[in-house]
């Protein structure tokens, strides 16, 4: 299933760099939501993520004639997004203040949950998840998102986050450890 998806993406990408506008739109349709969610995993500024996505898509369109086939389209797009966001931030000379972001991260989640109709227990669980995540650093949140939500392998994560294999492993281990420590803090259904 993983490989089937890759083949689909590879074809889409080939069509796109050959000039197909339908492929361009299809790529957006297929990957933009995940890009958006990924961006939000380590920054709470949704406008920043939107700008990043716009930047990525405009750039790939501009340069499509010079682009080469990619092995994994999603990883490629994630890397592009990451770079775009960092570039935008560098231009704005804003440093990510971790503590502030953590607070606003929680607030954002609550707002989003209003739109979802879940059972009460589900909602409660999700609030707890948000709180647990808010105690992680940005890099920890990012690695956890890529591993658990995007189901990426360590190798793939190291490409996206521009870290070596071992560093990613360590980061992931630390993140999971921190999650476990915080489960008890937030009354997560956990009996030791």
């Amino acid at each position, binding site marked *: 299933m*993983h490989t089937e998806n890759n083949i689909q993406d590879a074809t889409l990408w080939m069509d796109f760099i050959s000039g197909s506008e339908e492929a361009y739109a299809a790529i957006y349709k297929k990957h933009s*939501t995940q890009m*958006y969610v990924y961006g939000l995993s380590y920054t709470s500024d949704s406008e920043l993520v939107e700008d990043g996505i716009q930047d990525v898509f405009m750039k790939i369109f501009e340069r499509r004639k010079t682009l080469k086939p990619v092995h994994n389209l999603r990883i490629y797009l994630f890397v592009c997004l990451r770079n775009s966001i960092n570039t935008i931030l560098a231009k704005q000379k804003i440093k990510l203040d971790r503590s502030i972001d953590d607070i606003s991260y929680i607030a954002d989640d609550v707002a989003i949950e209003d739109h979802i109709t879940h059972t009460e227990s589900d909602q409660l669980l*999700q609030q707890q998840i948000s709180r647990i995540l808010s105690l992680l650093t940005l890099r920890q949140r990012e690695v956890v998102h890529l591993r658990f939500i995007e189901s990426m392998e360590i190798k793939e994560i190291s490409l996206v986050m521009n870290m070596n294999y071992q560093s990613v492993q360590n980061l992931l281990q630390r993140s*999971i450890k921190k999650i476990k420590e915080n489960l008890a803090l937030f009354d997560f*259904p956990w009996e030791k």
Partner: protein
Amino acid sequence: MDVQLPEKDYALYTFEAFLQDDFFLSSMTHPDERSIAFWNDFQQTNPANLSAFNAARAFLQSYYMRSQHNPVAHEKLSSLWCSILENTKKKNEKAHARKRLYLRIGAVAACVTTLLVASFFFTSRLSERMDDSLMVFVQQNPVQIDNLFETQLTLSTDRVVQVKERESEIVYGVEEIKVSTTQESLTREKRFAFNQLAVPKGKRATLTLSDGTLLCVNAGSVVSYPWPFTGEKREIYVDGEIFIRVAKDIDKPFIVRTSDVDVHVTGTEFNVLAYEEDREKRIVLANGAVKVRSRKDKAHELVLIPSQMYCYDKQKGKGYVSTVELDKHIAWKEGAYLFESERLDVVMRRLSRYYGEKIICNTEIADMRCSGRMNLDENLLDILNGLAFSFPIHVTCENNIYLITSR
């Protein structure tokens, strides 16, 4: 991913260990029969680390679920796409202009190379025309579709052409119009005029406009449009249902207007379901991108991406966007009618229009929901009897009027 089930002893795993195990992770976020069975069996054995397993699973599944629901994102990303297309078009235009400048400066006879100019949205600078001549024409020329027996093409007040075929084909050229198989050619008068194609119930037509835009026009529909397209935009008015493939022309945006909703587009395929008498109007996008705007509330604008439907409820004065199965909404142009959980009276109304027969549906069964697929090549009575076979309805026919009652 893993065809073989793992040999590991999961009963020894800690919370952290579970979250670092590939099989565990993929089982929780992308379960299949095998993995579900495996973990069920695991739980049955009542392992010592059951609480760690439960916690790891609860965490992972809640976390995953939380990331799946993002309705806010959907809208934002649709608008973002609109913005991306606009901006890439602007860049294209700049590049285009620069090239032209070089040619002039160069003063060298260059061969004309066809530039791959992509077609996109026109910009949102929508100039509100003071003289809305198309709407004036539509209002002054209402068509009583029920009184028509033949498909009718109106070229001007004194030139009306009747077309006999059940499925007719009308093609507009630069100076003339070809009508169906009769090879009849109509020449254009020098004056600009509004034309109107009226397709009565029980008939269909395909219409190709002078710019190459292709329309499939469904039964009981009236399409009004100017000939030729002058001015800075191409506009048509639809009362009925069409499937339209708009010819690309980035300089002249195309607008499909209906009684409640306007659709702005360039180079795109979509379905417009907008019979004036119906309460619901539906725009379904097959390819490209369109911007949909409510006539009542001009500020209310939505962008659609392929496989999305904009549905406007006249009574509520509200519209909403949802993702749909394309096939269901455009199958009619290939002669099939697909419907899912549709009200019986709506189904009957569509059949009535398509076949040109009067069908009356009893109020007590009007809101019964049904799903099905019909081949519109079949006889109406056969179709109705087929429905009676699956649903608790009774079909009778008297004086050419079909009556549907509850069984």
